[in-house]
């Protein structure tokens, strides 16, 4: 019998959010617990390059495969991976456990199934999804700084015995951050300049060109150095105004010290990275997301004074936000407010919880064949 092992299953989200969170937990698992990732995300090779054992399958709807057949294929594949890697815990990170997955859960009761379920759902969305929680022995809820603004369906399930909440999960550790000079050298920018990171969504299903282009031009006009991260999974690269730098790096967090400020959407990972590492930010929430209540995060940040927020993407509001962000006094205030928050990283606590579950499941009679 080998080491206790966790198999992380992730969906094909618009960004790398689910994958990033799984890796954030996996890399913190204490020895001898190890992990494997089975993902539908096109970013699988990127994770694999980091040394993570990664398996990939295309997602439903891809290639015209009928959805019912895809679920059968997923079930077939997952069974094979369970046989191969013999995990004791299987963790699913997504908002909706698919039918193919649920079938395998029912067929493999010898394993411990965990649902890693981010909160901050839009009100009235996904309430039926929560009924599927009964298939899972545990529900892990990555924490939210904006918890008090959460109006989604998951709030009704907090407090149950099998639901475990932790602090916000951030992949990078503080000791992994480069110093400003090193980070700027990696990016090819001047450490003495006012460097601004602009990341306004994955760009796969959101048109960031209009808002992003305006923000970038405004920043450039005011003498800032603009860096735009290009996601490795973006199908089409956005048109970026001349003068802005692009970078395709994953993970980006170690390079955050290079930046004096950021203009960003409020997806889970981006938002919590920026606040956790106290990067003064102007938040422009993406409101077209299906489930994620980005608007609530932005409003909390503005209310709590840890960030600026623009809700209406008209040029006047964006211009005001950008100009305010470039005020060094404002940035100092925002950074101080961020540093006053709880510095703990939920990934550490979640890794401990997973390890405990894995060990307790591993010590049981193995489901040998």
């Amino acid at each position, binding site marked *: 019998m080998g080491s206790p092992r966790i198999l992380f299953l992730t969906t094909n989200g618009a960004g790398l959010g689910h994958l990033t969170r799984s890796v954030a937990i996996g890399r913190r698992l204490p020895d001898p617990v190890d992990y494997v990732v089975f993902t539908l995300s096109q970013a699988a090779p990127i994770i694999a390059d980091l040394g993570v*054992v990664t398996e990939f399958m295309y997602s439903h709807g891809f290639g015209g495969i009928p959805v019912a057949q895809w679920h059968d294929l997923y079930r077939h594949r997952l069974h094979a991976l369970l046989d191969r890697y013999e995990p004791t815990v299987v963790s699913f990170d997504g908002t909706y456990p698919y039918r193919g997955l649920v079938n395998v859960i029912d067929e493999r009761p*010898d394993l411990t199934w965990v649902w890693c379920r981010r909160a901050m759902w839009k009100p009235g969305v996904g309430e039926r999804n929560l009924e599927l929680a009964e298939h899972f022995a545990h529900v892990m809820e990555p924490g939210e700084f904006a918890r008090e603004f959460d109006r989604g369906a998951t709030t009704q399930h907090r407090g149950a015995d099998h639901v475990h909440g932790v602090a916000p999960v951030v992949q990078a550790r503080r000791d992994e951050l480069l110093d400003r000079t090193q980070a700027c050298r990696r990016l090819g920018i001047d450490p003495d300049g006012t460097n601004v990171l602009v990341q306004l969504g994955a760009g796969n299903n959101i048109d960031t060109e209009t808002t992003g282009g305006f923000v970038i031009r405004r920043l450039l006009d005011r003498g800032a150095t603009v860096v735009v991260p290009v996601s490795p999974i973006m199908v089409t690269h956005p048109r970026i105004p001349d003068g802005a730098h692009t970078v395709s790096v994953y993970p980006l967090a170690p390079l955050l010290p290079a930046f004096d400020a950021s203009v960003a959407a409020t997806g889970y990972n981006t938002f919590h990275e920026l606040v956790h590492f106290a990067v003064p930010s102007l938040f422009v929430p993406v409101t077209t997301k299906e489930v994620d209540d980005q608007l609530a995060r932005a409003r909390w940040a503005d209310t709590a004074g840890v960030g600026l927020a623009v809700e209406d993407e008209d040029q006047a509001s964006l211009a005001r936000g950008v100009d305010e962000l470039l005020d060094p006094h404002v940035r100092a205030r925002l950074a101080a407010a961020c540093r006053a928050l709880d510095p703990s990283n939920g990934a550490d606590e979640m890794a401990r919880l997973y390890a405990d579950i894995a060990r307790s499941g591993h010590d049981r009679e193995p489901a040998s064949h």
Partner: protein
Amino acid sequence: MFFVLNVGRSGSRTIAQVLSQAPNCRCEHEPEPQLVEEAHAYRTGDLAQEDLVELLRSSRPVDGPAEGADADDDAASTEVRGESANRLSFVIPALREAFPNAQHVWLVRDGRAMVSSALQRGWYDPDRDAMSYGRHRPTAVQLGDVDEATWASWEPFERLCWYWARLNRQIREDADDPRLVRVEQLDQEVDALATWLGLEPTSFVVTRANRRYTDDEPRPPHARRSNHVDQLFTVDDWTSDQHETFRQHCGDLMDDLYPGWAERPPDSWASSTAAGSEEVIDQHLLAGVHEQLAELRFFQQEMMALRQERQDLRTQVQGLEDRLDACIQERDDHHDARQRLTDARQRLTAELAELRDRADDLQRQLATAREERRTQVTTLKTEAAAQLRRERARRTEILQSRTYRTALGLKRISSRVRSTSRRAALAFDRALPDATAPDSTRASRDTSRPAAPAADHALAPVSPWAEHVAARLVTVPDIDGSVDGAVLYALMVWDPTPDDLASVVQEVRTLQRGLGGFAVVYITDSEAFHVFRTDGIVFEHIPPARHRQGPGDEDWASFRDRRLALLMEAYRPNHVMLMSPGAEGRAGSLAALEASVRALPVDRQGG
């Protein structure tokens, strides 16, 4: 509306009383505010005309319905309002601005009689004229006619002469086309005057009001006490100097107003109303009767007004009583409503408590049901796990059975035979100069990896890997999206560069468009997912050797073969082919694929 302008001591009260005898006239004598100080201030420039105009408009009633008449009753007569007061004569410009449509009556009296009367009243006598009227009487100095020294040298008599002449000239100049009325001839002129003012025809009785009485002519009870004097002072009592003084100041104006005045006494202007009458009537008594009648009419009008006011008040009281009743009723209604609300609230509170109890019960039932279900699920899972273990044990038994091992061995032998014959064919092809055979000996960049498995790129039967799966799990659509009848090719592409992979995919798609009828699933270790993602091409990724860090000591080739077996099981392709991605071998691979597709029977269906 009309104003009787005069200098005072000229019959202003008399004319007011006389004109008020008309049913539709109400003429007041010196009503409040009397404008004593205001007129003085206006003369001296201390009160602006606009302020005086506003005061006049706010304090003087205009023509309107008679008191007690319905304001909406068109048939009700309109009361003509008038005022008779000498102070108005000082403020005519403001009066005209305030009431531009008012008529002006210029009431005059023989200057000699006026001066005598005023002198007897103490006008301009500093010892006697100390009241407000006296302090605010105009002086020639104020009006700029003489200097202080001259004015100080004038006796009250001379001052009065100046006053009579000066003010009457002022009236003549400032008034708006005034109608001249001599008080001495009021009885003759009153009818015409009334017609001019729009009054109803009336039998006016002209009596003299405000006249003086002496001990010789005692004051009747109705007369004012202040009209009693010790002795009358008339023109007959004037000195020659006084006559001269009067002539100097007033002579010209007297010539205009009272022609031939110098030869006639002041009391000669009056008409002899009693002359020729057969009835001898005591003039004083008659005058008194007329006075009393006039006052009686005045009081009658006052009483009518008071009666109307009383009626109005009664109506008001009734209205207030009705409102009070309504408020009481409203209060009672509110009280009832509040009581109903209180009852309803109590009822709802009780219902809410009951519902909460029911909700708690249901919650408990739900928790119990969930727990029971969880227990059931756990039991079922445990049973299923046991069943699964039994099935696997059975499977192990089968796999370890002699029968299976024998059959497997035979199959392997058969496979080796086919493999040997394929290698022979390859060797034969290699020996030929024909370059159509695929370059399966191309050196891999990773020389430590074993060579990729060769594929049967001639027409081949269904892959032996698919034997264990009853049917395909997925049906890959062809380039047109059709899932019916397409022959499925599994194309393996190992370790290509992204550009080579893109070229392979592009050229295969060109073949698909041209030939049609076959679907493709790619199997590759390449990480250039975007090549497939752009057009939604089905592909399976097998982690390359540098990434695979799975458990155990399994080498990559074994891992790859096990994964291929899994994929064959799921897709059950009709053909499996190896595609050389490099420029050299790619043409051969594509040619082989094309040949394979072209060799497919027209009516052959995949599956």
